[in-house]
């Protein structure tokens, strides 16, 4: 197919045919090819037999070219549907950048306006599907198959779409697992990404919410795919080039800034005395015991409570400088008091957090801040760090079964686990030693039965969970709801967030079970029963057995740990509300409106 185009770059004007662009084998998108033609570089022509992907891409982009403003990669918001229509074909693998936080929401909305009669059977490969429009594409029959990691608020809609036959589920991955597949068998053909700023050449500034963008673009562009970006603002010069313009084919300034969810903000005002008790137990029984210096905190009020008692209870225990110095962690506002008190040396982040940009930028000793003066996050790198370079993951869950498997999956919701499983597991590829990792490995009796006398460490994986949640829902169950979900949604296997063989500690208000110190499954189950309180599982505990587990140091109650329950109240929190976090930050933290209490 041929198409005549008049191309002007600077003072040069040339008429070209699209065929010429494709056949001469430039491994570059059309709009960049424009510049390339103007500069007239000579490249070795590619053998058409070995450049089918590139020729296909060039052909598609030729349909997009007329929408681009002359001499740039910019198209108008009103043309967005037409641009998508030009480059997307039925059956394509498409990635809509849906991170934990930053969402290519405008492009997602526009994709839903494509004609399902013409464009359908799309295979969506994206880390998150938290927007209603992500699911709408399936309801409309535009998209058909989904491979993802996290659905968050759309968990119920995903389950429903599966049941109605509107959505074929590939698999629920972890972030790293899905990212890996982008480079093996799930490479996107078209990726719709988002950024804060772009210049007319397509250079992108992703702000401190860089998250997945570099990885998506690299996987797409280096396999001859097409990258389209929505940006909040088109500028003359971007603050920092996070993505080179060469790798971006077209950009549009979205009518509204992209949607950003403050997922990692926990209001200290909602932390309860029980959270404080468990945080005290964690610090004394685990952080101090193992000297945990490199870690990740799962999101929740339990870990927020730990962060907020570091400058009080932690200080009192003399732990400053001994624990919590290096984190793979999003910029949690509740960590501000500990950072300000000099506890933390470094934090690398998966993503940003609404309201924390200025604070992070002003603390370059702690956060990863670029030469431009703003932080950059990177989900792929931080997840890798979280998998290989931390000694402990601590976080909550929804249900723990009698064996110690845990899951946040509930019947009727296919939510996925995001990155938790990569941190909530022992990384078997790890080869470097740290005291915490080695100590935990030394205590791991069952491992020695397989390894003989060769020393090997173990990541601490701590599940921190009250025995009962709101409305007396039990956290300890005979059988995970994940089984029911697997049946309903025709999954290959029940979605387990953290497997029992990876869990080293279960921490409830009743005590800590040191599972890795147990011999065999029976003893592990007994230790779980001992901390399961008044749940059905906990009620099966035998007092004599619990007593011997305590004597053997396999279970420790607050009293065994020397934690004074009477001190477990909110007055231990270094900040009791959002305003106090702002005060700690010297006014640098700018909390979202919904969290303000003044």
């Amino acid at each position, binding site marked *: 197919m041929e198409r005549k185009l008049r191309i002007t770059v600077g003072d040069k004007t040339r008429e070209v045919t699209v065929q010429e662009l494709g056949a001469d084998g430039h491994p570059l998108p059309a709009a960049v090819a424009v510049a390339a033609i103007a500069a007239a570089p000579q490249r070795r022509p590619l053998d058409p037999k070995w450049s089918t992907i590139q020729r296909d891409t060039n052909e598609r982009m030729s349909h997009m070219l007329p929408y681009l403003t002359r001499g740039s990669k910019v198209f108008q918001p009103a043309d967005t549907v037409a641009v998508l229509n030009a480059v997307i074909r039925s059956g394509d693998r498409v990635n809509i950048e849906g991170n934990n936080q930053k969402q290519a929401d405008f492009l997602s909305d526009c994709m839903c306006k494509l004609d399902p009669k013409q464009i359908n059977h799309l295979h969506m490969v994206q880390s998150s599907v938290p927007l209603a429009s992500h699911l709408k594409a399936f309801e409309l029959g535009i998209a058909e198959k989904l491979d993802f990691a996290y659905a968050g608020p759309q968990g119920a809609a995903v389950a429903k779409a599966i049941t109605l036959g509107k959505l074929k589920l590939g698999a629920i991955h972890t972030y790293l697992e899905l990212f890996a597949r982008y480079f093996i068998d799930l490479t996107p053909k078209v990726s719709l990404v988002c950024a804060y700023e772009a210049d007319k050449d397509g250079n992108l500034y992703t702000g401190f919410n860089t998250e997945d963008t570099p990885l998506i673009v690299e996987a797409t562009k280096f396999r001859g795919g097409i990258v389209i970006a929505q940006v909040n603002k088109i500028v003359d010069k971007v603050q920092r080039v996070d993505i080179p313009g060469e790798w971006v084919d077209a950009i549009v300034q979205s009518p509204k800034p992209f949607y950003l969810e403050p997922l990692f903000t926990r209001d200290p*005002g909602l932390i309860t005395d029980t959270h404080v008790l468990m945080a005290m137990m964690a610090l004394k029984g685990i952080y101090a015991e193992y000297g945990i210096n490199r870690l990740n905190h799962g999101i929740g009020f339990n870990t927020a409570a730990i962060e907020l008692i570091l400058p009080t209870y932690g200080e009192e225990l003399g732990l400053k400088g001994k624990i919590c110095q290096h984190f793979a962690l999003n910029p949690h506002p509740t960590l501000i008091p500990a950072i300000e008190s000099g506890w933390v040396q470094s934090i690398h982040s998966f993503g940003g957090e609404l309201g924390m940009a200025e604070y992070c930028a002003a603390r370059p000793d702690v956060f990863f801040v670029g030469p431009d003066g703003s932080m950059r996050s990177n989900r792929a790198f931080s997840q890798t760090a979280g998998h290989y370079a931390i000694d402990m993951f601590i976080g909550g869950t929804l249900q723990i079964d009698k064996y110690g498997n845990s899951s946040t999956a509930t019947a009727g919701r296919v939510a996925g686990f995001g990155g938790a499983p990569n941190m909530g597991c022992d990384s078997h590829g790890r080869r470097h030693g740290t005291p915490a990792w080695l100590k935990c490995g030394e205590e791991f009796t069952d491992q020695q039965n397989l390894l003989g006398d060769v020393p090997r460490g173990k990541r601490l994986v701590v599940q921190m969970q009250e025995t009962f949640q709101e409305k007396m829902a039990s956290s300890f169950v005979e059988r995970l709801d994940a089984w029911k979900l697997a049946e309903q949604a025709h999954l290959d296997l029940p979605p387990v967030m953290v497997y029992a063989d990876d869990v080293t500690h279960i921490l409830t208000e009743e005590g800590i079970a040191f599972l890795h110190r147990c011999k065999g499954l029976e003893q592990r189950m007994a230790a779980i029963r001992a901390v399961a309180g008044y749940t059905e599982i906990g009620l099966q505990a035998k007092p004599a057995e619990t007593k011997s587990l305590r004597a053997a140091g396999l279970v420790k109650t607050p009293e065994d740990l020397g934690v004074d329950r009477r001190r477990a109240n909110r007055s231990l929190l270094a900040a*009791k*509300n959002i305003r106090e976090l702002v*005060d700690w930050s010297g*006014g640098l933290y700018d909390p979202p*409106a*919904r969290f*303000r*209490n*003044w």
Partner: protein
Amino acid sequence: MSTWHTLQERSFLESSARQRAIGLVDAGSFSELVGPLERFVSPHLPILGEAIEFDDGIVTGVGLLGKHPAIVISQEGRFIGGSVGEVGGAKMVGALKLALSIFESLQQGSAAEAEARRPIVLISFETGGVRLHEANAGLLAHAEVMDLLQDLRRKVPVVALIGSKIGCFGGMGFIAAATDVIVMSEFSRLGLTGPEVIEQEMGRNEFDASDRALVFRTTGGKHKFIMGDCNFLVGDTLADFRRQAQHVAQMSMIEIEGMRRIGSRGAVERQMKLVAFAADLRPRDSTDMWKALGNKEPQQLIAASEEEFQKIAVRWNA
């Protein structure tokens, strides 16, 4: 243990109704009236299967501020949102009647003594108004309280202390408006119709109740202070509130009368002027008002600590 001294530096916002009541008056001087041991519980809630509280969510009692008997009423927001039902309402009414009778009995003695020991009423509000489960009784209590405020006027100062999480809304917003002096912290709110109800009735475009920054700059202590709807803005400790109450206890009744925002021809005229000013200005946001009153950088006022704020804020009619 909640000793008086540890209570003083405690956050008012974080404290329970009882801790506030104990900490607002002089050390060791608080005696609770119709306390939890009396088990005067709501007769209506059990029928509805709703949880009850032994004090029905309101702490009443007597203490001292120097020589002044202080009658304390303190609402507990964590129990059904601090709503006022039959028992809690009756406890409020009883406490106010007690203030009046103390005043009257002091009148029997020397004038100097009556002046030196003039009682004071402290009401710590944390409520959305009437308890819907027992609305008739609750409404009646509101009316009786309103009546008593008129009886107490020019005799016993009634001070509204608003530093709680829920703040003061609904019918109790009217009650607060009818007191002599209003003391607030920046973390609390005062209004008639609550944010959620405004949103429900007028739509999200008119008022987004989930935008807490908006809610606070429309109903919060700082805004109320600038607009003259509250007389004093204080810090968030119990000591801060107690000191302000002490200060009012020592003021003359004429000064106190001058603190009222409504209830006289002059006050009504001042309010009407403010209404006219606002109508002319057509503000889109409370910060427009602040600006029009001479506050050049409204955002700075929001960020400012209570102390800084006191220094820089320009108030209506101040």
